C-alpha cells in the first residue's frame, strides 16, 4: 500500500466540460493481462498496450490489413527472400515517465532488444515476468529468424532460415512491438525488470499514465509523437465486462465508444439517438471441419453433398442474429487474395440426398462437435449444431451432438482418428492468407490446427509456392487457385464470417473499424 498520497489533479481533475472536450472514454470489455504485448496473446491486452503505447517496424494501416511503414521508413528483401533489411526512422522519441527519462532516440539497439529477449534464452529479459513469448513462438519466429544484425544505428538486417513471404506481415503484429533497450537496462539496474510490463514505455501516440486493476487505464497524448500528436489529450479505458452495462454507459454519456454489443441489442442501438453504429466484416471464419481421413468423409463428394444440405442463411439469422455473413471461402472477404469468383454450394436438400445416395451413403450416423465457448466466429455453437442436426436429418443423416470442456475440446479435436465433424473457427493474426490457409489446411497442420486432417497435394503445392514469393500480386493468384481447390474438395463446410459492430457517440469522429479486431484511437477526435 502506498503511503504517499499522489494526487494528479493537473491531468484529470478538471471540470467536466473541459476534461471531456479532449478526453475519449472507451468502455473496454476486459482487463489487460499486462502491458508488454509480447508476453500475451489476448486482443484486449493488445488494445491497451501495443496500439496506444507502442509502434512496430511496419504496421497495419488502420481499417485495412495493408502493411505500411512504421518505425522503419522502408525495408527491402534480398532476391532469395532470406534477408530483410529495415531502414529505421530517425528522431523518434520514447515516452518519459516517473521512473525513466530517455537519453537517446530510438535506434537499432531497441529493435534487437525487442526480439532477442523473445528468442534467446540467455537474454536478461527472457525469463522476466514469466515470459513464454507465445505469439513469437506460435508464429514460428524462433526457428525462422536465424539472426538479427545491426548494420548501423539506423539499419537492421533480419536473416531468415528459409524464405517466408508472410514475415513482413508478422513484423506488424503486436508481439513485434518495439520496446526501449535503454529502459530495459535502467529497470534491470533498479532491480525492477517487471516494470517493463507494468509501467510501459514506448514510442506510440499515447503514453501510459496509470492502471487501476480491473477498473480504469489512463493514457495521455504523446506530444512528441513522430507522426502528428493525437487529436485527443487523454484516453481512458473504463473496463466494463458486461455488454448490457456498456450499452447503458454509452447511452448515459459515461463513455464514447464500446466494443462487442449484445447481438440482441444491435437493432435497438442502431436507432438510438446520438449513437452511431459502425460495422465491418471481421477477419475470421467459422467452419465445420469433417475428418477427411475417416470414411465416408474421406470422399469429397460426400462432403460436398453434406455442404449442400446446410441452410447457412438460417444459421446467420438464428445463431448470429444477423451479425454475420455467409462464408463461401476459408478466408474472409476483407483479405487480399480472396476469390470472389467462387460460387457457394447451393442449399438444396433434395440434391444433397441424391448425391449421398449416389455415393452409396444412406442411414449415416455422425457426430458434430459443438464448442463450449462463445467466439465471434461462432456465438452459439450448440445452437449451430442443433440447426446442422436438423438440416442433416432432412437428407437422412443422423447427428449426435457432443461437447467437451474447452481445453479438452481443443486437444481431442486434433486427433487424427477423431470421430465426427468439428465446429471451430479462426481469427486472423496478420491479414496474410497464409495465416488461414497454411495454418488451418496445410499438411503440416494435421493433428494440430488442421482439424479436417486434410492434406491435398495440389492445394499444398499452391500455398507452399505462395509462401516463398515476395510479389503480392503473384501470391494472390496462387491463393485464389488454392481456394478453388478447397471449394472443390470441401474439407470444411465454411459457415460464416462475423460482422463486427462498434457503437459510439455521434461526437466521435474519425474512428475506423479495424479488420484485425484491434481498437485504435489514434486519429480519432471528440467534438
Amino acid at each position: 500500500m502506498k503511503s504517499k498520497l499522489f494526487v494528479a489533479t493537473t491531468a484529470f481533475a478538471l471540470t467536466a466540460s473541459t476534461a471531456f472536450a479532449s478526453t475519449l472514454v472507451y468502455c473496454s470489455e476486459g482487463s489487460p493481462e499486462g502491458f508488454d504485448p509480447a508476453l500475451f496473446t489476448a486482443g484486449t491486452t493488445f488494445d491497451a498496450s501495443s496500439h496506444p503505447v507502442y509502434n512496430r517496424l511496419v504496421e497495419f494501416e488502420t481499417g485495412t490489413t495493408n502493411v505500411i511503414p512504421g518505425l522503419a521508413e522502408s525495408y527491402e528483401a534480398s532476391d532469395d527472400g532470406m534477408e530483410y533489411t529495415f531502414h529505421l526512422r530517425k528522431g523518434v522519441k520514447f515516452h518519459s515517465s516517473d521512473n525513466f527519462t530517455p537519453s537517446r532516440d530510438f535506434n537499432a539497439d531497441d529493435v534487437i532488444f525487442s526480439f532477442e529477449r523473445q528468442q534467446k534464452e540467455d537474454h536478461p529479459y527472457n525469463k522476466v515476468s514469466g515470459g513464454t513469448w507465445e505469439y513469437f513462438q506460435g508464429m514460428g519466429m524462433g526457428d525462422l529468424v536465424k539472426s538479427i544484425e545491426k548494420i548501423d544505428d539506423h539499419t537492421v538486417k533480419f536473416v531468415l532460415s528459409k524464405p517466408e513471404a508472410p514475415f513482413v506481415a508478422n513484423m506488424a503484429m503486436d508481439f513485434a512491438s518495439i520496446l526501449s533497450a535503454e529502459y530495459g537496462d535502467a529497470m534491470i539496474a533498479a532491480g525492477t525488470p517487471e516494470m517493463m510490463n507494468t509501467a510501459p514505455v514506448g514510442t506510440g501516440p499515447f503514453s501510459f499514465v496509470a492502471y487501476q486493476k480491473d477498473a480504469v487505464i489512463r493514457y495521455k497524448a504523446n506530444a512528441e509523437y513522430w507522426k502528428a500528436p493525437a487529436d485527443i489529450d487523454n484516453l481512458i479505458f473504463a473496463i466494463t465486462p458486461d455488454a448490457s452495462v456498456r450499452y447503458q454507459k454509452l447511452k448515459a454519456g459515461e463513455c464514447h465508444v464500446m466494443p462487442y454489443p449484445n447481438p440482441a441489442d444491435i437493432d435497438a442501438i442502431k436507432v438510438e439517438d446520438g449513437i452511431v453504429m459502425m460495422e465491418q466484416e471481421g477477419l475470421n471464419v467459422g467452419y465445420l471441419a469433417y475428418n477427411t481421413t475417416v470414411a465416408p468423409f474421406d470422399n469429397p463428394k460426400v462432403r460436398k453433398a453434406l455442404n449442400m444440405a446446410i441452410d447457412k442463411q438460417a444459421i446467420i439469422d438464428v445463431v448470429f442474429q444477423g451479425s454475420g455473413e455467409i462464408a463461401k471461402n476459408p478466408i474472409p472477404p476483407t483479405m487480399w487474395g480472396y476469390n470472389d469468383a467462387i460460387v457457394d454450394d447451393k442449399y438444396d436438400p433434395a440434391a444433397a440426398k441424391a448425391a449421398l445416395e449416389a455415393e452409396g451413403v444412406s442411414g449415416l450416423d455422425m457426430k458434430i462437435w459443438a464448442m463450449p465457448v462463445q467466439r465471434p466466429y461462432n456465438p452459439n455453437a450448440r445452437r449451430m449444431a442443433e440447426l446442422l442436426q436438423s438440416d442433416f436429418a432432412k437428407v437422412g443423416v443422423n447427428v449426435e451432438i457432443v461437447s467437451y470442456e474447452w481445453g479438452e475440446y481443443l486437444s481431442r479435436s486434433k486427433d487424427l482418428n477423431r470421430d465426427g465433424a468439428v465446429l471451430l473457427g479462426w481469427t486472423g493474426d496478420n491479414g496474410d492468407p497464409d495465416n488461414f490457409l497454411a495454418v488451418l489446411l496445410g499438411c503440416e497442420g494435421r493433428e494440430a490446427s488442421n482439424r479436417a486432417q486434410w492434406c491435398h497435394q495440389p492445394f499444398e503445392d499452391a500455398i507452399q509456392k505462395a509462401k516463398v514469393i515476395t510479389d503480392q500480386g503473384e501470391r494472390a493468384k496462387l491463393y485464389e487457385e488454392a481456394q478453388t481447390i478447397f471449394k472443390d474438395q470441401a474439407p470444411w463446410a465454411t459457415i460464416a464470417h462475423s460482422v463486427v459492430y462498434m457503437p459510439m457517440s455521434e461526437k466521435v469522429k474519425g474512428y475506423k473499424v479495424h479488420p484485425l479486431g484491434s481498437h485504435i484511437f489514434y486519429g480519432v477526435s471528440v467534438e
Partner: protein
Amino acid sequence: MFRYLLARLATFLPTFIGVTLISFMFIRVLPGDPIIVMAGERGISEERYQELVVKLGYDKPVLAQYWDYLGGVVQGDLGTSFVTKKPVWDEFFALFPATLELSICAMIFAMALGLPAGVIAAVNRGKFFDRALMSSALIGYSMPIFWWALLLIIVFSGNLGWTPVSGRIDLLYYFDDVTGFMLIDSVLSGQEGAFKSAARHLILPTIVLGTIPLAVIARQTRSAMLEVLGEDYIRTARAKGMSPARINGVHALRNALIPVVTVIGLSVGTLLAGAILTETIFSWPGIGKWMVDSIFRRDYPVVQGGLLMIAVIVMIVNLTVDVLYGVINPKIRKR
C-alpha cells in the same frame, strides 16, 4: 473467555490445511489443461507443451506440487498468476479492498433495513405489514442478481439518470490508492465532489448485493422474535406493565439476536459469492470477477490462492461470530 477462544482457535488449523488441500485439488480435478486453454485455437506443439509443463512445474508429482504450494503459503507466497505473471498475493490485496468496501456497505444496508423489518413483522404478526414485508423478503431472496442489477441500472441510471451506471468513481477524479477504500481515499484526496461521486457509485451495487442478506435477516429476525415473544418472561414483563417498545426493543430483541448473528455471519460467505455477479455487472474491480476469470483460464495459482484467502476470511468472520455469541449470551462461553 480465554479458554473458549482457544478452543475455537484449535479448530482453525485443521480447517486451514483442509482448505489448502481442497483449493489445490479443486482446480486440478476440473477438466482442461491451462496450457492448452492459453494456446486456444492456435494450438501448441508437443515440444513446446513439454517445455511449458516443466517451466510451470507440472512435471512434478501432484503431491510434490502440493507440498511446494503449502511451503509457499506458510511463507506468505501464494504463487504467481499464469496470466498476468504477477504475485497472487499482490493481486488479491489490490482488489480485496473494493470487495470489502462493497460487502460492508451491503451488510450495513441489509442490517439497517432487515432488523427493523423483522421486528415490525413479528410484532404485527399476521397483519398487513407482516404479510407485505415477508412477501417482499421472499421476492428479494428469489430475485436473480443479474436481472435485478440490470433492472436497477436501466431504471435509475438509464431512464432517471439518478445514479451512475457502473464503476467506483467518476473518471474525472484520479488519485492513487491509499487505503483501497474509495470512500476514504476520496476524502483523503481532497478533491471536491470526489466523496459524493464515490458514494453515488456505491448505491446500486450495495442494494443489489445487500438484497439477499436483507431478505434472510428480515425473515430470521421475525421468526426469532416470534419465538422469544412467546416466552414466559415476556408475558411477565407485559403483566408488569412495561412499555411495548421496551419489551420488544430490549428484552425480546437481545435474545432474538443470537440466531440472527449466526445468519449475519453466514451471510459473509453469501456476500462474497454474490459479489461475483454484482462486481461483473457494475464493473466493480474486486476479487469476485478476478476469481471467475481465473477459473475459466485455469489460472491454478490464482484460483487456489484466491479460494484460500476467501476461506480464511470466512473462517475469521465465523470465529468473530462465535466470540460475539459469548458477548451476547454469557451462558454460551461457560459451556
